[in-house]
């Protein structure tokens, strides 16, 4: 697929990118440590706050004391009863940990997708992950005979995961089958087509089984409220594998910012890098979508916020996206569980409602300062 205007624009951009990097790199290395320290502290702060605030359970200031008490060799009298601690540990803690996992995975996947496709508008759901998982979830809600039937394993995350992976595989094989050269644009277009197809099938199934619309709708909005330690254990291996693979590709993604041909000339196997990064990012995204539904906004906004703050090099964008994406989702989950108490506010609503103004502010201040 040839799109001359797109090629022209990207030629103009890649020289700007290169010259920016040369000018900035010396200054940014000094700042690098502080960005990591600050992001780490933000994440830690968000997690401790996340442990402390909720609609029930012990008084908030007792919880850090009890957390200290639980550490080896330290004994503090926190005055937290066993049943109160149970609420914190069994209900709140898995939520916080799952928010860390989901937030970091969506952010690093989004950043990686944006890197391999050199397209700032891409989010981790683009290649069909969202629609495939949504179709899988809809099928489970519609066709399992009874919501309380005793399955050996819960089919919902499994089928959602399979739906996501199958959708991306179809996208990948169609998008790369017919043209060797410009596979990045045709991949994105194939993703759009597969998304439309899967969404159409999902809508058709839903229309014929409208008694489950409410369940499917709340799944699509995404939630951390149903988090259990089982969910955390279920996704952790995939998410860790995906994050490690993506972090290992951070330098190659930097090279690919200049364009496929130039990266090839520099000895990078562009096709293989793109395949591995897409597979790893899809694995991570599909896993977290399977347990938390479609939490929007995180995967596109966090990487851009990181770029605005710390520069565009993937050596910083990827690890900082992990830390800040996690911190952002943990923080967003707090209003989600207390705003509409005793009901829940969907997490996707909170991420967009608080995240969008913050991002606009950031965009505005960074533009005026440059």
């Amino acid at each position, binding site marked *: 697929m040839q799109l001359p205007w797109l090629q022209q624009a990207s030629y103009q951009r890649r020289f700007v990118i290169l010259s920016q990097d040369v000018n900035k790199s010396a200054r940014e290395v000094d700042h690098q440590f502080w960005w990591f320290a600050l992001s780490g502290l933000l994440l830690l702060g968000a997690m401790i706050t996340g442990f402390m605030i909720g609609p029930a*359970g012990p008084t908030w200031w007792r919880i850090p004391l009890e957390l200290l008490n639980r550490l080896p060799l330290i004994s503090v009298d926190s005055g937290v009863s066993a049943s109160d601690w149970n*609420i914190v540990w069994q*209900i709140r803690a898995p939520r916080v940990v799952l928010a860390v996992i989901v937030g970091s995975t969506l952010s690093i996947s989004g950043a990686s997708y944006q890197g391999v496709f050199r397209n700032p508008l891409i989010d981790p759901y683009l290649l069909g992950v969202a629609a495939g998982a949504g179709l899988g979830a809809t099928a489970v809600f519609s066709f399992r005979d009874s919501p309380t039937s005793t399955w050996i394993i819960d089919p919902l995350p499994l089928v959602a995961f399979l739906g996501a992976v199958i959708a991306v595989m179809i996208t990948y094989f169609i998008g790369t089958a017919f043209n060797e050269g410009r596979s990045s644009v045709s991949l994105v277009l194939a993703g759009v087509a597969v998304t439309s197809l899967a969404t159409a099938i999902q809508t058709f199934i839903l229309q*014929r089984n*409208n008694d489950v619309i409410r369940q499917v709708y709340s799944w699509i909005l995404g939630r951390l409220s149903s988090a259990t330690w089982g969910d955390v254990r279920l996704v952790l291996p995939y998410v860790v594998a995906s994050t490690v693979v993506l972090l290992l590709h951070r330098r190659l993604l930097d090279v690919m910012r200049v364009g496929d041909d130039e990266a090839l000339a520099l000895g990078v196997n562009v096709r293989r890098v793109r395949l591995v990064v897409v597979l790893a990012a899809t694995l991570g995204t599909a896993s977290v979508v399977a347990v938390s539904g479609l939490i929007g906004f995180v995967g596109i906004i966090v990487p851009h916020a990181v770029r605005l703050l710390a520069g565009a090099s993937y050596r910083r964008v990827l690890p900082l996206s992990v830390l800040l994406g996690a911190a952002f989702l943990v923080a967003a989950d707090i209003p989600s*569980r207390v705003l509409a108490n*005793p*009901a829940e506010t969907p997490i996707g609503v909170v991420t967009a409602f608080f995240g969008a103004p913050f991002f606009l502010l950031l965009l505005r201040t960074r533009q005026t300062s440059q």
Partner: protein
Amino acid sequence: MRKLSLVGVAGLFLFSLSACSSSSETTDTTVAVETASYPVTVGDLTLESQPMRIVSLSPSATEMLYAIGAGAQVVAVDDYSNYPAEAAALGTMLSGFEPNVEAIAGFTPDLVVIAYDPSNLVEQLNALSIPVFIASAAVSIDNVYEQIEQFGVLTGHAAESLQLSSQLQTDIEAAVAGITLPAEPLSYYHELDNTLFSVTSNTFIGQVYALFGLRNIADNVEAGNDYPQLSAEVIVSADPDLIFLADTKCCNETAETVAARDGWGLLKAVTNNHIVELDDDVASRWGPRVIDFVVAIRDAIALVTAG
């Protein structure tokens, strides 16, 4: 005539349905009246002692709990549990669709009743050692009697629940027996909302109509879908004898708004004014008020056969 023999006829006139759904009766009932022996087991669930702090996230279950005299044991309900008035007065506004587990646990319940598990709710509550009873949506009228009796066993009101279920059964049978049905079965259309979603005879709602031998125009419209969305063309060409509106509260539909719809003005049900405005809640819950639904259908048929 299931279960009728268990209670004896004496209970029937002592315990009229109007009394059981009235608010004064349930609050008078002290919990210690019955000496139920625990542990009790219903299905997979075993309760070691009488639950005194019940949280209900199902409007139908809430109505049953209050109707069998277990209302004093209910501490919190969901935001759809608007009946009876004492349940609504709890003002606890929990959500059964987007449940906040911490908020539920904050009531320190010793029994949580739900209609379905939206996602991991049972697992999360069990992690806090809170027992959960799932009273799934009824698929038949017998399910209603059965669930009322299950709640009786669980809450220590077994005798009252048996009285209620057999009274309900008697009243429903009396309502059905008290009317002469026309030789040719009447056809009907049950409207769930103003985008023309309906129900088939396979649903609980459809089975209530089937008691009177009514013919559902939504049957066989769409194979395999018990809640089909009908097109206006299907409804107009079927020209049902009766139209039941179960969307008077959700969507403010009335006999007038239906008559004003394009192309509906010449329908039999519209010209003869055989449009029945139901209470959305009564016509969708599988609780003790199902008798009100049955009576509304009977009265509508009486209107058609008289005219």
